[in-house]
């Protein structure tokens, strides 16, 4: 790797960052050279976003150095990073759609056009037009952003990042955080062409889940795993499967996922999905879910699996096809309807959708089945206490009392409260949406144990997970989705588990 200070635009040396309970970045060193596009990939939680936040001045590293053009520096905040030539194009677009393109481009930087507190609009819009020319967007800078399509908006974001040229002295480094996730293929081609054309003006760091796109656009690729950089590859020598392997990088351990406890599922069908479709999300999805079965759904972001799980839990009704639950055809318009049909949703946003943090453990456990604890319209306090105590004991929820607010529980125990809520509501189908996100290893194992135990008793589970390893390890069967369709169905009986490589080829 070159240490030539003239060639280096931006580098991190030995950067470490800790949050309570998490070692987010471990001795990370990366370098971005002038005119280079560097890809940055890794699973959720690998440390990419922490790294990006350090580069854009949002977080400060605990130790290690940031060098711009070879000179050590600190980035106090986002504005400071901007002044030093680091810009960011956000994945959730940061443009204000009710303002014009020109207003957006110079939002917060109007001072250069301002005299006596009055903005000189003609000169601002003239400058904005010059910026749009750089990214070859043919639009009136006086047009409102909501009149633009997504691709043009992304270009305007890029143009906004490029306005830093006028502010910052040195070479620009632009962070592209999942810029392609909302774009169609043709739009992506345009974006990539513009990025390549701008390489003389700026270097880019490109973060994406789409490995093919990272390979296509980048000159060089850093792979992150568990907070560390595990590989630095030339894009020309890499392929998608190899990259995925580096990202995941663990071999399957049968014991970890309680595979010996994986019992064959029963013949009884609890949920049948036939040609289920939702426009712009998933198409022609067909499968059966049996009592005692864990069905894993694998796929990258944008594969449609997220929307499919939301449809099955009542948040996002499907628009075509048949959904049969417990022998009855249904269309789930609200979670309440799903709950009535015996479906329990364990969301990835545990603290938002899973629990009411400011209610007690007992109240959360009984929340989805309070009706069964009432007589003459009044809650039977004794019965509620007994029920809550029983679940706390059964799932070994570690809490001082059942009256403790869920706010004060650890993530793993919070997740057990969510599971207890659905088991208490006698849900027959559990939808596990990233059930171990943010949990430490011990807590994960406890969740696996509970999931195994309840499926042995005849519950059915649909699982989407952060890692392919977890999906394969836990599931009886795995569906692989890509671009809204099922591309592969794999049996995952103990001893005959598919390898990650077997599935990845159907994902990317």
């Amino acid at each position, binding site marked *: 790797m070159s240490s030539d200070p003239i060639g280096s635009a931006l580098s991190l040396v030995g950067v470490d960052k800790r949050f309570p309970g998490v070692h987010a970045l471990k001795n990370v060193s990366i370098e971005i050279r002038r005119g280079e596009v560097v890809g940055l990939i890794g699973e959720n939680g690998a440390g990419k976003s922490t790294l990006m936040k350090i580069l854009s001045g949002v977080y400060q590293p605990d130790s290690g150095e940031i060098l711009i053009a070879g000179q050590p520096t600190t980035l106090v905040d986002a504005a400071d990073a901007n002044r030093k030539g680091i810009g960011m194009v956000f994945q959730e677009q940061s443009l204000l759609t009710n303002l014009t393109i020109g207003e957006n481009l110079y939002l917060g930087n109007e001072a250069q056009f301002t005299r006596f507190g009055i903005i000189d609009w003609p000169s601002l819009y003239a400058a904005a037009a010059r910026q749009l020319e750089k990214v070859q967007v043919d639009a009136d800078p006086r047009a409102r952003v909501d009149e633009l399509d997504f691709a043009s908006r992304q270009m305007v974001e890029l143009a906004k990042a490029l306005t830093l040229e006028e502010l910052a002295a040195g070479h620009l480094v632009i962070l592209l955080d999942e810029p392609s996730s909302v774009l169609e293929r043709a739009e992506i081609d345009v974006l990539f062409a513009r990025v390549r054309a701008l390489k003389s003006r700026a270097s880019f760091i490109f973060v994406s889940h789409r490995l093919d796109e990272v390979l296509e656009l980048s000159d060089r690729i850093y792979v992150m795993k568990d907070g560390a950089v595990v590989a630095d590859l030339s894009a020309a020598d890499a392929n998608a499967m190899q990259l995925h392997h580096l990202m995941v990088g663990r071999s399957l351990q049968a014991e970890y996922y309680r595979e010996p406890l994986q019992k064959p599922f029963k013949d009884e069908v609890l949920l049948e999905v036939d040609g289920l479709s939702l426009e712009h999300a998933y198409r022609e999805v067909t499968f059966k879910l049996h009592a005692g079965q864990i069905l894993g759904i694998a796929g990258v972001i944008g594969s449609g699996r997220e929307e499919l799980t939301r449809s099955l*839990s009542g*948040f996002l009704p499907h628009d075509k096809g048949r959904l049969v639950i417990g022998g009855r055809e249904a269309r789930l318009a*609200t*979670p*309440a309807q*799903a*709950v*009535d049909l015996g479906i329990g*949703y364990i*969301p990835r*946003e545990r603290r*938002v*959708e*899973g*629990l*009411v*943090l*400011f*209610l007690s453990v007992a*109240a959360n456990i009984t*929340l*989805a089945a*309070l*009706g069964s604890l*009432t007589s003459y*319209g*009044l*809650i039977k*306090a004794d019965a509620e206490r007994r029920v809550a105590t029983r679940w706390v004991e059964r799932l070994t929820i570690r809490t001082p009392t059942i009256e403790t607010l869920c706010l004060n529980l650890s993530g793993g125990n919070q997740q057990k409260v969510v599971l207890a*809520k659905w088991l208490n*509501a006698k849900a027959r189908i559990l939808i596990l949406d990233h059930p171990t996100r943010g949990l430490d290893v011990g807590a994960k194992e406890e969740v696996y144990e509970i999931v195994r135990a309840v499926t042995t008793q005849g519950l059915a589970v649909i699982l989407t997970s952060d890692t392919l390893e977890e999906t394969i390890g836990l599931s009886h069967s795995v569906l692989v989705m890509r671009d809204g369709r099922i591309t592969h169905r794999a049996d995952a009986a103990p001893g005959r588990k598919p390898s990650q490589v077997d599935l990845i080829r159907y994902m990317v």
Partner: protein
Amino acid sequence: MGATVKRLRSGRLRQWLPLATLLLLVGLVGAFQPGFLRPSTLLQMAGDTAVLFVLATGVTFVIMLGGIDLSLQSMASLASVIVALTIARLGYSAFALAIGVGALAGLISGLAHVRLRIPSFIATLAMSGVQSSAALVLSHERSITLQLADRNYQSWITGTVLGVPSVIVIGLIVLLVAHVLQSLTPFGRYSAAIGAGEPAAYASGIKVDRQKIFAYVLSAGFAALAGVMLAGRLASGSPTLAAEMLLPSIAAVVVGGTAITGGVGSIWRTLIGALIISVVRIGMTFLGVNIFAQNIVFGAVLIGAVAITIDRSKIPIVK
């Protein structure tokens, strides 16, 4: 100042602050005006508090859910007009009619808020305008004094039960009913869940819209009851009878320690809040503060109480 407010906002202290404030205020007023602590005076104060407490109780249900009802004072006034206009013909049914109109108004506000997705302060502000106008039109912009013959129907409000003013008994019954609703029924539990974490409540299968509509029905229904009580005490109905009561009612809820952002609170806190407002009002009267200037104090009290009770870490942006 900032540090003090911060300390008050955190910890167990905050929970007991309203009660401590009430006792302190009673002690203060008693020290300056020893007559205040006589049982008869205290009983009189409790009677004066009853109407405010009933109004505040209704809106407590809405605030618990994270909403607001700005129509309670016009609902109470409208109810007094309805009673005054119909009591001669309907007798006791006039009270039922007034409270029924209240429940209906609450149902409409609730439906507008939930089905049309209109913020609750807009839905109830609009309803407030409708109610005020209806009261003005129905009463021909006049105060209607009850006929002597019709005042017999009011004895359940104006009389006494075992020496205790009836309004106090009504207030205690409202307290009991509200306590049961809030602490012992699924509705009360769901309200707390929705106020503290609506997405989780929704994902748990709670029919959130239904709970919200019911809360608005309760709020307007209790407001109508308060209007009926006022009409009885003043032996008249008027379109402006409760005009100055919105601010003290909401102040009572918040001063008692119920969070304006929802999820945390109870009817007991509202009781303490209503008593605090009453004691402050009496204190001001002793001090000779102009009665029309009292809402200046309540406005300041409301701002202070929200500043202390709100948890700003939960809401970075306040609109």
